[in-house]
């Protein structure tokens, strides 16, 4: 059962100041099953974020289309929740009000909202911080709130654009476990963009590798590691074999990207 279908989606940006148009993404095809955790792995500038933004509806494809549950995506909406790399919590709202934002836009009554918010505050481990302003939180806590905010809206699919990219290594590892734990508990279709190979394997049921600019989907690697996954799996032979293989593929692309500049 296909949840999300990406059909021949490409994106060309108009040249600035009369320059050549920039091809960011070559026609891509991808079909995502319900409750799959897909990571999209590629070097910077491979168009992976562009692809994710098109799925979100924040950008329009130059060709092709995106279908979610058979309906074409034309604009952003609550069915596709998104977590950004930059910190995008609303600074004038407390943690609790940030998580409740989407529910409020839906017109849900306050009492119901409060229950849902409490459960997601609990899920991401932010009990006691409900009334803090975003500025008072660490980067990791802000991204946990952002994940709770996206999930509280109960989207059909969760999109994450390098959500842990700005975090330090230790925090990033903990965040990966947290997000994976949530996914194992409450199944959800997830599209997760990253340039970190280890992260891509650890989180995924499928890794989509993208090539350097102009971006295109290069390979599609199934990850059959068992669940629940703990951080210790990162040192297992199966994990290492996958990592070696993907490292090789990404290395070629990264070198091509460097040469192209």
């Amino acid at each position, binding site marked *: 059962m296909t949840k999300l279908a990406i059909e021949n989606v490409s994106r060309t940006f108009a040249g600035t100041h009369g320059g050549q148009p920039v091809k960011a993404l070559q026609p891509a095809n991808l079909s995502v099953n319900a409750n799959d955790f897909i990571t999209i792995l590629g070097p910077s500038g491979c168009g992976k974020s562009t692809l994710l933004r098109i799925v*979100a*509806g*924040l950008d329009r494809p130059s060709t092709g289309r995106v279908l979610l549950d058979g309906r074409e995506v034309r*604009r*952003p*909406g*609550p069915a*596709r*929740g*998104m977590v*950004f790399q*930059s910190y*995008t919590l*609303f*600074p*004038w*709202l407390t943690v609790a009000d940030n998580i409740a*934002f*989407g529910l*409020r*836009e*839906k017109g849900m009554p306050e009492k119901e909202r409060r229950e849902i918010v409490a459960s997601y505050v609990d899920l991401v481990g932010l009990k006691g911080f409900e009334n803090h*302003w*975003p*500025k*008072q939180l660490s980067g990791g806590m802000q991204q946990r709130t952002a994940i709770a*905010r*996206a999930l509280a*809206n109960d989207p059909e699919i969760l*999109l994450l654009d390098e959500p842990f990219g700005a975090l330090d290594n230790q925090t990033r590892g903990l965040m990966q476990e947290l997000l994976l734990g949530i996914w194992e508990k409450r199944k959800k279709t997830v599209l997760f963009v990253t340039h970190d190979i280890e992260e891509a394997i650890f989180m995924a049921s499928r890794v989509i590798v993208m090539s350097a600019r102009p971006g295109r989907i290069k390979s599609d690697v199934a990850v059959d590691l068992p669940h629940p996954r703990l951080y210790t799996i990162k040192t297992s032979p199966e994990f290492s074999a996958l990592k070696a293989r993907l490292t090789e593929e990404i290395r070629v692309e990264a070198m091509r990207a460097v040469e192209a500049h």
Partner: protein
Amino acid sequence: MMRPLEPVSPLLRVVLGIGFFVLFVAFWAWMTLGGYVNRVFLADPFSMLRDGWRLLVEDNFALDILITVWRVVGGFVLASVVAVPIGIMMGAWKPVEALLEPFVSFARYLPASAFIPLLILWAGVGEVEKLLVIFVGSVFQLILIIAVSIGNTRRDLVEAAYTLGSSSGGIVRRVIVPANAPAIAETLRLVLGWAWTYVIVAELIGASSGIGYMIINSQSRLATGQIIFGIIVIGLIGLISDTAFKALNRWLFPWSLA
């Protein structure tokens, strides 16, 4: 030792701030009491205080102060009520900006003081004319500055709201406006300071009350002590209202300073 951008302790900050006032008054006293400038043109600090006291006790100057404050507040509130919604609309909706921005940019350069003769013709020399001078002087500045800050709203916050299901109206009401509320309040504080300039100019011409009227009246009598007292009163009121405005903003928007 001073290092670039190094903060100063709160006590030292207060001492230095007051210290310069003291230095300034001391210099003034030295120039006037020492006989370096002609007393006819510049009163010394003590006769200034004496003149000021007489103004308050004998000439009912407190009423003039009240009238001027009322004019500033009235004209400024009028300008804000018009400018804030227009500025928000201009910043948020680009066709509105395309329609109004060229005109507002043009009108902003029209000097409010040059409108005074015209406004007197239209509205007489009463309160309406005084309010209109302040209104004309502030409204276009306010619109433009507010529109610019609205236009600079963080795009990633807007995008995040879209992915959470906000409609266009929801984006304006629940993202763009709250995100810029502190900047708008700060703009109001800034332009309120300019409104004080306009009110005095308005009171110099065709007025029969107010601080500006007292000042122009004192000029014909060479009462420089009164003039300086009037100017200092304006400065003090400005300082007080500015401090109050800042405290209000801190209280209204704790999240922007947290």
